[in-house]
Structure formats: structure tokens, C-alpha cells
């Protein structure tokens, strides 16, 4: 019996877009959040270092939401997904600056 391929939408934040083919939203596959992230980083290997630390955990300055719920308050990477769920990757953002100019000072 062929397993059903389930599609969810992953929203890519601006700072990671260039590592994901400049896409805002990526149709991804997986039955849990962990599976979807694995699918994403397999498809776009440049995302691996940004999303996960050396031990494979989601980095602590990145939050993942399923629809509007933070996965830390549901079942984390084991959170089950259903067709059409929206996953958002939300990193901490610092700047008031425009095009990613890195300047070690406050006030931009």
C-alpha cells in the first residue's frame, strides 16, 4: 500500500530566503515537524547550519510555529501535521538596518 504524500506549507523568513531558492513559501512533505525540517534541509542543504546546531537540535534563536502554535508548547519536533498545515520559521531579528549591513553598534 502506497503511503499518502502529505503536503504542508513552510514559510521561509527573509534572512533565510537566499538559502532556499529565494522562495517565501515552500511546499514540503512530512508527517511531523521533524520530518518536514529534515525534508527541507535535504532539499536545501544550506539551511542545515542555520536551523540546527551540532547536536541536531533546532537552534535556540529560531522558533517553529505550526499554524499559530509554538512547537515548544505542543510536541516539539514530534508535533503531528495534517494536510494544509502552515509551518512558520521565525528567527530572532536584530536590525533596524536595511540590507543586512552588519554593524556592531546600536542605533541603526
Amino acid at each position, binding site marked *: 500500500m502506497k503511503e499518502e504524500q502529505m503536503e504542508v506549507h513552510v514559510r521561509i*523568513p*527573509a*534572512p533565510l530566503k537566499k538559502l532556499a531558492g529565494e522562495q517565501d513559501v515552500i511546499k514540503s512533505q512530512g508527517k511531523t515537524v521533524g520530518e518536514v525540517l529534515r525534508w527541507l534541509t535535504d532539499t536545501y542543504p544550506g539551511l542545515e*547550519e*542555520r536551523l540546527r546546531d551540532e547536536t541536531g537540535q533546532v*537552534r*535556540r*534563536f*529560531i*522558533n517553529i510555529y505550526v499554524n499559530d502554535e509554538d512547537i515548544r508548547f505542543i510536541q516539539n519536533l514530534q508535533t503531528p501535521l495534517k494536510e494544509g498545515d502552515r509551518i512558520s520559521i*521565525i*528567527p*530572532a*531579528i*536584530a*536590525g*533596524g*538596518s*536595511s*540590507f*543586512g549591513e*552588519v*554593524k*556592531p*553598534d*546600536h*542605533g*541603526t
Partner: protein
Amino acid sequence: MKIGTLKTIKAFKDWLIIKATREGSEISVEETHQLLHDKGPFVLLDIREKEEIAVGYIKGATFLSQHLLNEKVENLLPDKDVPVVVYCAGGIRSLAAARVMKEKGYTHVFSMAKGIEGWKAAGYEVVGDSELTPHQLSRYSRHLLLKDVGMEGQMQFLKAKVLLVGAGGLGCPAALYLAAAGVGTLGIIDSDKVDLTNLQRQVLHGLADVGRPKTESAKDAIHRINPDVKVVTYQERLTPQNALEIFDKYDIIIDGSDNFPTKYLVNDASFFTGKPYIYGGVFQFEGQASVFFPKEGGPCLRCLFPEPPPPGLVPS
């Protein structure tokens, strides 16, 4: 002739009172005082002009000058079934205003007989004359029309002390709006100088300011908008050494910094001084904004993002 004129005016007043008493309903100052004391759901509407309000008003009043009543009252008071007590100086204009409101469909409108003069004569308290000047009443009149701001809210703005960390892309627009609204004290901490590349978004600074400290440029711009605002400048970096002492002097901290070490320092110093922390971050066309106020039971920045990214991993 003078006496004759007075007689005519008195006759006119008598006529107006009789007419409006039939068509409207009057309420005594004693009854109004009781309503205020009971904190019942009603609106006390002061329809006098700003020069009169400057001399004194009844605490809890909402303000709408008589000449704006026809045009604005339905915006100010969308619920036409809420009881309204209108007052003026002596109770004449308020009769006319109550009639206008009845015609607009307000179901429970009363005119306070004898007005604020009668209120004072009965020994009831009025808020004194020292709070807002006629100029300020005019400048902030659109705030006074907002039920959730009003006179008390405007007084709170004028007494508020807000610290802006950074006078850049986020700090500039925040400062513009706070200054225009009449926030009394704005602290600005920034060690940077204005650069030509800043001008497309850092809207407090102009071409002539290039090379000047951002704090100085910001102070001038704020005073051009509103000389009421006291601007305190800190031409230095925010550090773990100075943060607590500076934050202590303010009611609200607004973070317009562009780097993670400063954001986490602002978070921690806000936490330890018990101040609400207004957080914002922008990357190109995306942004985040939040209020962190753990003293009132909410989370802090470290609850949202437990640690900052290491340098270089995420562009700021």
C-alpha cells in the same frame, strides 16, 4: 440701553430654557455628582471652548467643543443608548447641545442645569487651571476627543518618561510619534553619528545633520515638532555598567537597537528594573514587534528566543 439689552438677553435665555426644558431633560449638579460618585455607565460631556476648559473642568469629563458637536459627536460616542450628561459654563449651551444630540438619536441625554458654575457653587471639586495651557488644549484637542485618552490620558503622556535605545531606523519614527503626541520626557541613547546612508529611513535626521551625533540631531528634530518635550541625550553606548542606572529614570524602554548583544542587554536591564520593554526588529521587508513586561506576568525576550545567535549566523 445697556439694561434694555440685558433684559433682551435674559428674555432670550428664559425662552431657551423653557423651550429646551420641554424638549430636553435637565439634571441637577447634585444628581450629576451622585452619578459620578456611583461610577455609573455614563458620559460626562464638556462642550465648552478650550479657553474655558483651561480654567477648570470636572474630573472624568470627555471634551467636545460645541462647534464640533454636530460633526464629531457620533464618532466620539457611537453608542447612542449610553446616558450622557452635557455641561457648559452656566447650563444654556448644554441645553442646545442636548437637543442636537436627541435629534441625532441619543436616547438619554441630559443637560446639567447651572453648568460648572452651579457645580462650583454647590462646593464640588473642579480640576484646577494649572494642567494644560490653552495652547496645549488646542494642540492635543484630537486626543481629548478620544475617549480612551482624554484629559487624564494626555496628562499621563505629558508626565511619561520614555527611553529610546538607538535613534536609528526604529527609534526615529517612534520618537516622532511620541514627541508629536506630547510624551513629556524622551531619553535618547546613541553613540553614533549621522551618516548619509542613514537618511533614507532614519527620519529624524536631515542632510545638514550628516556627521553630527544622532542624539543632537534627534533632539533638534523633536524640539521642532514639539517644544513641550524634554529631551535627555546620552551620547554613549548602552553597557552593562550604565544600563540599570539609566533605565531606572524611565517608565518605558523602547528598543531600536540593531544588534543582539544590545537587545539582550535591554531585555535584561528592563527585567531587573521592572520596566516594560518595547521590542522591535527589522530585516529588509520583514519585522517583529512585541511588548515584554514580565513584572506584569508576561514572558521576556529570553523566553521567546532563549539565546542570541552567534555572530555571523544571522545578518542583523
